[in-house]
């Protein structure tokens, strides 16, 4: 059998049109069309590039050069009789392609929904306390320098409410009750509260004022923040963000250019689902602890209603995907159903 091809010489860009005639494997002849020269050669000291789609076959032969021949079934069969390319068979298999079409979305969903969060929880548990303390300390310093200002709430009020809370925390069954409560003024955060992973919990003055210093409502928020700390949510989120970015760039890395625009959006959407999960967990933790604190779950709902009055209750289907928090409407319903 004869095949038309090109022979590229070794060490220069010169080439010759050739006819390749294959004989007893692994021997073959290469006839240069113009010069009439014939080279007897063998595949023994050749490197054959594995078959890929219908691209021409490349055979690098020591001393002779690079032989490039159009891919044809009879030539492929001859070339690959001893070193067949398994991956090419997979790529050609209709069954496997069909399986992939179904399996890729399913496996991705499973990975992001179950495997990744589970890995993140494990990671969160491994983070040494020293690192957690440094992270919290540095974050608070950075926030103090940028968006947090000293509060104008009176010392008396601060002492009164925190004493009540420290007592309450001791009564509650909390594994690690090393909490530290602070008040700040912040235009950027507005009415808000957040927890640092070492147990520092920050209330903004704006939140205290929105709740009209109602201790029960503020306690509901405190329990939510304690929930974040107890479930190690900061560390979990760090791990989840890290693994998500890595996974996305690994699975879709070669989808460059256009994907830059979407890569960011995708990462954000996936991360928001994770943070929403964390918010639900903190909510349910808080609602569970309300009774221990001598409060009705309705108080938790009332706190959310106050926030909804300030921020709107959300609830659009797209807002649900693009937001870091579940809609307040859903959170209010969740607390009310807990009664």
């Amino acid at each position: 059998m004869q095949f038309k091809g090109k022979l590229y010489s070794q060490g220069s860009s010169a080439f010759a049109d050739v006819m390749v005639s294959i004989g007893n494997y692994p021997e073959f002849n290469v006839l240069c069309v113009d010069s009439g020269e014939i080279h007897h050669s063998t595949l023994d000291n050749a490197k054959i590039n594995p078959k890929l789609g219908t691209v021409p076959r490349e055979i690098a032969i020591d001393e002779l050069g690079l032989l490039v021949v159009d891919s044809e079934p009879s030539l492929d069969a001859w070339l690959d009789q001893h070193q067949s390319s398994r991956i090419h068979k997979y790529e050609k298999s209709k069954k496997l392609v069909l399986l992939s079409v179904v399996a890729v979305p399913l496996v991705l969903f499973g990975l992001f929904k179950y495997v990744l969060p589970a890995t993140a929880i494990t990671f969160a548990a491994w983070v040494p306390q020293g690192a957690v303390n440094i992270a919290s300390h540095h974050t608070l310093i950075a926030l103090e320098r940028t968006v947090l200002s000293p509060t104008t709430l009176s010392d008396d009020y601060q002492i009164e409410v925190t004493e009540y809370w420290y007592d309450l925390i001791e009564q509650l069954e909390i594994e690690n009750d090393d909490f530290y409560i602070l008040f700040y003024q912040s235009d950027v955060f507005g009415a808000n509260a957040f927890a640092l992973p070492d147990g520092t919990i920050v209330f903004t003055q704006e939140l205290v004022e929105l709740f009209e210093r109602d201790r029960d409502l503020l306690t509901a928020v405190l329990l939510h923040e304690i929930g974040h700390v107890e479930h190690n949510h900061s560390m979990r989120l760090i791990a989840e963000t890290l693994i998500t970015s890595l996974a996305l760039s690994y699975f879709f890395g070669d989808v460059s250019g256009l994907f830059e625009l979407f890569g960011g959006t995708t990462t954000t959407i996936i991360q928001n689902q994770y943070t929403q999960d964390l918010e639900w967990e903190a909510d349910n933790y808080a609602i569970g602890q309300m009774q221990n604190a001598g409060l009705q779950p309705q108080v938790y709902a009332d706190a959310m209603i106050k926030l909804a009055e300030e921020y709107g209750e959300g609830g659009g289907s797209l807002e649900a995907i693009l937001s870091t928090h579940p809609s307040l409407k859903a959170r209010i319903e969740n607390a009310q159903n807990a009664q």
Partner: protein
Amino acid sequence: MKDMDDTLNYSAYSVEELKDALSNVDKNAFPDRAQAILTELTNRKSHEDTITNGRKAKVLFHGNGKEYFSIWIVNLLLTIVTLGIYSAWATVRNNRYFYSNTDIDGHRFGYLAEPIQILIGRIIGVLLFVAYYLASSFSPMAAVVVMLIIFALVPMFVCLSASFRMRMTAYRNIRFNFTKNYSRAYIVFVGYTLLGMLSFGLLYPWLLKKIDEFMLSHATYGDKSFIPKLETGQYYAAAILSFLSALGIGIVGGSAFASIGFGAMGENAEVGSLFIVGSIFMYAFVFVVAGSIYQAMIRNHMYNNTELESVASFSSDVKIGGLILLRMTNLLMLVVSLGFLMPWIKVRTAQFFVDATQLNIEEGAEDVLADQTQSGNAIGEEVAGAFDIDVALG
């Protein structure tokens, strides 16, 4: 004797000798001879023209979406079930598909990288990313330090990465290469970048030109160098035009949109959602238009003003409108198919750029010699050196 002279063969004369002969010959005594010299000179001139003008080469892309889809999806599945480790092997399959299906003048490109080299580069990339991410999560101060270290390493990584990519590309059994000029890289990527920042971005187009010039002028094909003659003015024109277009679309679209959107937003949450979808599309549109203007103008400028010495000159005529249409339809295909049309998107994009590219092959194309780093065939050779890595995440 006279007859002999008439048929005197001038083809062995050089152009200089011919000119000499023409001025010395007695035109009245030997008109035929003078005519013969003139004819020979004219022949030489037109021959010289064919050398300098070369000949047009066909640039073709042979890939097709259907064939590539099955390759892509199977490799994607393998990548996912191996938690990303197979991605290095998948990259080689994917890259080879596009390189080997790109054809200039009847010769295909070759992709030479071995998966293991890519895997090592990725492991380094992941470690750097994890280090940076953890440092920045745990301490904003540590993040600054790590950032500075990475910034200081960027010029080195750029050289290593460019060198890897070029060395893994072959054409006609000759490898491309990249001269790792570290000191120049530090001047461009650290020195000029700092200048660009100090200028509040006013020098960015100039910086981008310097970067393109650096990358092109250090690229080689065998023993031949690429010679770019880029103009700063073109970069400013492209940057200003894409900035103005983004601004224009932002103002016109944004205000029209806001007047419809905001009124309805408070009343109905679903209208709010629609508003968000609209904003995302606006953002995508601005991104596509501004990006396409810059890319089309700069690509054309770079191709039209770069030569591969005595081997080829290039030209590119990417139409801005065509590129915007391509990018917008790509985006639509991607969203509607939830990513499954990606193979067709990649194939039609490759086809688009190939169609916009012309090559002029010069006579030296046959005589390119492999550089010192290549001893045997481009494909068979073991090319992995200790620093032959492409530090990258994806």
